[in-house]
């Protein structure tokens, strides 16, 4: 019984090759790791959830999709018309769209879904919709109680994912946990909270957003979304081929990823802004000159280079650059200007003292600078402290736990702080500077009569999108001229992927890696 060794080896390698070939045909499968901030999301119920992860956007479609320039494009709604006075919107729906459980998507679905949505805690998004009228099977009319130029933005949000109303009512709290039905390119196969979600391709899908090249069924057949809370673990998984893509890479790991030959990083404009709120009610910052001086003492370029390794971009307004409302006159943008900062402080009566700290009436210019305990904030805040010192402001850092700092802001005792927000709509100006939310979110305690007037106009006085953009630009511009904060930095959203295994589309016409990108994504065979 002696087998020729070479022959055995040959047949073994042949069968091994066959195995690999078989695997390759099957291999339209990918494993993604969710962003750490999305770990532990307990449900895929868009109506009830407060935290929805990326997989949600593949299970559901929305009426409207948003492009990279934040403009609005058709999705489940083929087209729409807005009444000139803003009091009605008519949506023409795509025909032939089906939910994963076979139920049709039509005008009635939209009506029932909005009714369910209105009973939720996110109802403010549609509170301006007074009534939904079903014109015919594929046409719905929203009758408005007031003009809502932000309607398209709301409809493009993942919280306004179109759910299947019948199963939603039947399943109750289990909708989104044990079963979930949407119209999206992927169906839920299994979901283990805090662990993983497995999605399989919806082969009937032909109604993708026109922003992706592929509007038919997705190229990837099966996606597993894993939840890994620790970034270094996720990185090791990526490095060893356990997973194919990390949907969020912290700035300090980007360098590590780039060192690996088979890994690649893709960055897209993010939705975060780092800034320094200035409490306008606390001396010395009740003097606008001191506020302007503090704001202009912040050297954004230096921070970008030294704290964030040059990845991302500087912020010179309160909004992310992609938003049209951020286009304020150049003179009102807030840039590093040490000469002006020093001159303003001199003018305000704060004279440079012997030890490099300014003084007025024998009092040193000492202020508090609050921050949260995450390491990136601590590092950034130390640099801000040094930059303030350079113009003669001595800032003393106090660090709070990130879940407690909001309550500390509510005391109104803060002078300066370093924080960040994540949002892609100009109404964030209202959120952080509205006079009725002093303390938190209005950390700057900013309550200015003219700003309130402009704010009311921006929030409720716009009939259509152009007016809204104009009104918000005016409001945002005015807020900037009052220096209730100093803009610092805009990070990028970075994803890391295994370039040997995944092919990403060359251009992604969306604000982030989401369904538009994943529809065009391929697994290498």
């Amino acid at each position, binding site marked *: 019984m002696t087998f020729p060794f070479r022959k055995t080896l040959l047949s073994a390698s042949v069968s091994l090759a066959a195995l690999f070939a078989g695997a390759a045909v099957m291999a339209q499968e990918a494993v993604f790791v969710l962003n750490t901030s999305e770990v532990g999301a307990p449900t895929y119920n868009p109506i009830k959830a*407060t935290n929805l992860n990326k997989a949600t956007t593949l299970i559901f479609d929305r009426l409207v999709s948003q492009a990279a320039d934040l403009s609005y494009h058709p999705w489940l709604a083929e087209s729409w018309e807005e009444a000139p006075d803003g009091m009605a919107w008519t949506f023409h729906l795509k025909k032939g769209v089906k939910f994963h459980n076979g139920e049709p998507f039509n005008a009635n679905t939209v009506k029932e879904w909005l009714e369910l949505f209105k009973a939720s805690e996110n109802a*403010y*998004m549609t509170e301006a919709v007074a009534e939904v009228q079903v014109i015919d099977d594929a046409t719905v009319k929203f009758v408005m109680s007031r003009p809502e130029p932000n309607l398209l933005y709301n409809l493009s949000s993942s919280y306004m994912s179109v759910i299947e109303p019948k199963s939603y009512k039947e399943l109750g709290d289990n909708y989104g*946990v044990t079963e979930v039905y949407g119209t999206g390119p992927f169906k839920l196969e299994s979901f283990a909270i805090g*662990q993983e979600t497995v999605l399989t391709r919806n082969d009937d899908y032909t109604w993708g957003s026109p922003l992706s090249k592929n509007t038919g069924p997705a190229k990837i057949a099966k996606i597993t979304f894993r939840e890994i809370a620790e970034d270094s673990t996720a990185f090791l998984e990526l490095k*060893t081929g356990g997973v194919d893509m990390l949907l969020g890479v912290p700035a300090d790991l980007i360098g590590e990823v780039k060192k690996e030959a088979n890994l690649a990083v893709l960055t897209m404009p993010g939705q975060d802004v780092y800034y320094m709120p200035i409490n306008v009610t606390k001396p010395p910052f009740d003097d606008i000159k001191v506020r302007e001086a503090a704001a202009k003492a912040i050297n954004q370029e230096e921070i970008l280079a030294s704290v964030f390794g040059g990845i991302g971009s500087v912020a010179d307004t309160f909004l992310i650059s992609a938003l049209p409302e951020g286009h304020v006159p150049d003179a009102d943008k807030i840039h590093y200007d040490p000469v002006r900062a020093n001159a303003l402080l001199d003018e305000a009566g704060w004279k440079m003292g012997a030890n490099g700290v300014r003084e007025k009436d024998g009092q040193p210019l000492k202020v508090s600078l609050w921050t949260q305990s995450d390491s990136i904030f601590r590092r950034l805040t130390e640099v801000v402290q040094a930059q303030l010192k350079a113009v003669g402001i001595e800032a003393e850092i106090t660090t709070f736990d990130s879940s407690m700092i909001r309550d500390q802001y509510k005391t109104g005792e803060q002078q300066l702080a370093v924080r960040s927000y994540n949002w892609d709509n100009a109404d964030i100006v209202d*959120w952080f500077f509205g006079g*009725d939310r002093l303390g938190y979110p209005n950390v700057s305690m900013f309550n200015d009569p003219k700003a309130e007037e402009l704010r009311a106009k921006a929030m409720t006085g716009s009939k259509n999108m152009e007016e809204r953009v104009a009104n918000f630009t005016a409001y945002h511009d005015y807020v900037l001229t009052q220096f209730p904060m100093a803009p610092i930095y805009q990070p990028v959203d970075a994803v890391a992927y295994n370039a040997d295994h995944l092919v990403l589309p060359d251009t992604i016409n969306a604000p982030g890696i989401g369904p538009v990108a994943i529809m065009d994504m391929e697994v290498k065979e």
Partner: protein
Amino acid sequence: MTSWLIRRILLLVPVFLAVSVVIFLILHFIPGDPIDNLLKVGSSPQARAEMEARYGLDRPLPVQYGIWLGKVLHGDLGTAIVARRPVADLIAQALPHSLALGGLALLFSSAMGVMLGVIAALNRDRWPDRLIMGGVLAGSTMPSFWLGLILMLVFSVGLGWFPISGARGWTSLVLPVLTIGLGGTALVARITRVSMIEASARDFVMLLHAKGLSPLRIQLAHVLRHALIPVVTILALRIGWILGGAVTVEVVFARPGLGTLLIKSLSQHDYPVVQACLLMLAMAVMLGTLLGDILQALMDPRVRAAMA
């Protein structure tokens, strides 16, 4: 014995009540509240007041406590404010993972610890003793997240024996169990060694030697039995600790569990979830001590006699 057991169990009731008050108060006294985590940009201040009213957060603390305790006693842990799921469901999802990890780690550290402790005691002050005691000391001083990452680098990245992370199948349990178990081993080994040495110096051991029993038999059948009493006490106390103390290991190895659930809900101030998690951990400690007492009674006739 039975009446002692009943008395011992009844004693748990006041402890349980005291623990529930402490848990409730601590949680509500730390700054921050769950509504902040629910509010989205754009919602109005009225919406906030409505939400507070909906979850009963506007009522006085004693009333809130009364409502919560009443429900808990009826087996209803409530609904998570931020996570929007019945708390019992969230815990039911997490608990099996914690029990598997904690149970195996406890088993590993007891078996390993007792074995090493016995070997060290038998070779007292010779090189195996020094080696073992030095080794376990080094093992116990390593922070568990670091040890976890090192084990991961060696066994998963380097050798490829086990998956790096996740909770799929038994292979993914090996490294987390080792990480937690190694820390516990040190404690068990040291206590076993010390109490073995102490017990060997007792008069009855001399008598056994005089009777001509083999030294190994004396050590394993008689001395070890005495020596295990403090070990069992320590192990019983560790039951609660192991369930909740695995947080860092759960995070590093991306495993769901009670620890991660607790940390996540604590950062969101999701009161019902945190309260339920802490209550689970407190109960685990309480039941662990009870179990320890019972085991001790079973092992030691003197304790049994004192009880009767």
